[in-house]
């Protein structure tokens, strides 16, 4: 689309040409600097959203939360592993006491 520069009256063009010459009044940049100095340096913490706020109160930071989560997973893995060892250790005795080898294995062995 062609810019219709000629569609405005000559009065407009004169007005624009004169207005462009207008210079701003002198402002003291120190006023801006004073305003910046009075601006609080610490910004308010952003409002968190999603699942994290639920846990934030308990763990304080994401890295603590990640550490606790990893420790919990490791503990569960070891527990499962140990339980299976325990099962292997206890079963023969249980079967011996019960006098039936298929009592606990369901006759699968």
């Amino acid at each position, binding site marked *: 689309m062609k810019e219709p520069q000629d569609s405005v009256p000559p*009065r407009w063009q004169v007005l624009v040409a004169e207005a462009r010459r*207008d210079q701003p009044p002198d402002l003291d940049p120190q006023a801006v600097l004073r305003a910046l100095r009075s601006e609080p340096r610490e910004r308010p913490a952003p409002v968190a959203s999603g699942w994290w706020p639920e846990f934030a109160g308990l763990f304080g930071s994401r890295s603590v939360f990640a550490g606790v989560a990893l420790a919990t997973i490791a503990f569960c893995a070891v527990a499962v592993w140990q339980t299976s060892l325990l099962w292997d250790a206890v079963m023969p005795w249980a079967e011996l006491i019960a006098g039936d080898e298929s009592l606990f294995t369901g006759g699968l062995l």
Partner: protein
Amino acid sequence: MESLVLRHHPEISRLLWRFARNPADLEDLVQETFLRMVRSLDTWRADQPFRHWITRIATNVGRDFYRRQAVRRRWATEPLAATEGGEVLPPEAVDPGADPAARAAASEFKELLATLPADDRALLTLHHLEGWDLKTIAAQFGWTVTATKLRAWRARNRLRALLTETHSP
């Protein structure tokens, strides 16, 4: 920080003077620009020139100023020499500047533009007074070039009607 303010203050003042109606408004707008700059410094990317970034902040401050004026204008008729807070300045308080004819023309220009929607005012201010091309303005405001041209065309049509009305014998 101080050196950033001192380096860009004259240019930002000159740009925002196109939007402001009096020195009090200008001071507020310049201050708001630098406050926004400080608050969003972490969003500035080192690969873009700082001058462009702060100019964008300043034009947005100017556009927001026009929007606030438009909202107030809906509620009350506001004289041109009023400050943003609504305080009306006596005519002698408005500094005629070094070039009174240019100051008067600028005032008339701003008064004419005040009848347009805020975005159209910002567009014509930057295009006519600052001499920005429409492509640059489109990039500043996040508009397409075609939409910007169309907006400029419509705004100038409205102005033409106004000028014909005002200056017809």
